[in-house]
């Protein structure tokens, strides 16, 4: 078995079988099962010698091939409990059917690949900013509610492949200085924020502690002013005027 074949990666056992059949120009409907089985096993053996990981599906296929091979050796006699009109089905039939179907899948995949390549060379331009043409504010959005928004986010989180967690590594140390910068950035953008706007969505407890310390620092240094318009109400934070321009 040529080494380049070994190093080529096959997407699965059917891919490998199809490769063996195609390179030898064998009729897919009349596979010399003994030869192909030997070649298939030789391939797996080479992989093993190279210490390459063999997916379990490849081993299952090896077993299937051996089973077919042995059944081909047995004389085919009509079984009494199956008064079939013809002789017993060809043991290769199921495998051939699978291979033929897989061949079409490969054809379609190849076609898609070409289309993808072609389309990746086509460029669009970003939509023009039509603000100057708009009579007033863009028409209000309709037909979307808050739960759709939340659902969108939830689905997104579900869609993202879960990261394989091998070991827990303590996250980076969150510096109070960095948090101060972040809070200031936010306040510069919004001018006034409530306490919960700033902390409501702090990702972890560690973040929360750092952020709180940062806020205390900012208040102490006079860069941020706190007020509570009503008893037990929200605490409003504002950038101290004139300090940050």
């Amino acid at each position, binding site marked *: 078995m040529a080494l380049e074949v070994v190093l080529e*990666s096959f*997407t*699965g*056992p*059917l*891919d490998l079988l199809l490769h063996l059949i195609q390179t030898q120009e064998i009729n897919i*409907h009349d596979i010399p099962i003994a030869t192909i089985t030997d070649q298939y096993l030789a391939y797996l053996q080479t992989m093993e010698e190279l210490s390459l990981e063999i*997916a379990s*599906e490849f081993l299952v*296929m090896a077993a299937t091939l051996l089973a077919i091979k042995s059944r081909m050796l047995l004389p085919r006699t009509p079984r009494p409990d199956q008064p079939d009109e013809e002789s017993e089905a060809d043991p290769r*039939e199921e495998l051939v*059917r*699978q291979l*033929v*179907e*897989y061949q*079409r*899948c*490969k*054809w*379609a*995949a*190849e*076609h*898609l*690949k070409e*289309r*993808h390549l*072609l*389309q*990746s*060379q*086509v*460029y*669009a*331009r*970003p*939509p*023009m900013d*039509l603000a100057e043409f708009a009579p007033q504010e863009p028409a209000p959005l309709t037909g979307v509610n808050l739960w759709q928004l939340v659902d969108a986010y939830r689905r997104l989180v579900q*869609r*993202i*492949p879960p990261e394989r967690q091998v070991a827990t590594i303590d996250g980076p140390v969150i510096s109070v200085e960095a948090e101060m910068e972040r809070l200031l950035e936010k306040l510069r953008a919004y001018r006034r924020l409530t306490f919960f706007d700033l902390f409501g969505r702090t990702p972890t407890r560690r973040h929360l502690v750092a952020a709180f310390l940062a806020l205390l620092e900012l208040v102490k240094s006079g860069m941020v002013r706190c007020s509570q318009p009503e008893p037990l109400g929200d605490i409003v934070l504002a950038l101290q005027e004139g300090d940050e321009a």
Partner: protein
Amino acid sequence: MILPMLGALEAVLFAAGSEGLTDEELADILQLPVHECRSLCRALQAAYDERGSGLQVMELGQTWQLVTRPEHAVYLRRMAATPMSTHLSPAALEVLAIVAYRQPISRLEIDHVRGVQSDRAIQTLVHRRLIAEVGRQDAPGRPILYGTTQTFLQTFGLRSLEDLPPLPEESGEETALSLFQKPPAWPRD
């Protein structure tokens, strides 16, 4: 009469950019019946092709878009310094092909065609929004059924699923046909 509207269509498609415009949106903007918008788009398409423009009119998904021609990709890549679009692995392409032709389809059925587990490839495709859950199979465990998305059509430059080429027929193999059978509504050729 058609000539001045061609200019208007050109301007409007240009402004819409990568968002594109549907027949209905065009009809609304140009104040023309939908079918006239379609023929106008085709006329513009032909005009662009004829004069060997650097641009082309494409119908992607359900929208008309003005885009560049592939032969100029070399210049655009230099301009945008964009990496070549991330390619899909052979396994992902296989899964995508199966979903495209046999949707809606479950993971198990995909695995069966490929002879190998497809979880990772499916996950990649879902993550890249090329396929999505389109329903549940009425079977134990109510497995997810997958179908292709609008992004799929756009990414592969297809107007609709009908633009997918028919699969090569397998002569004399009834059994094979039954599995990769096209829905009856699809045009042959």
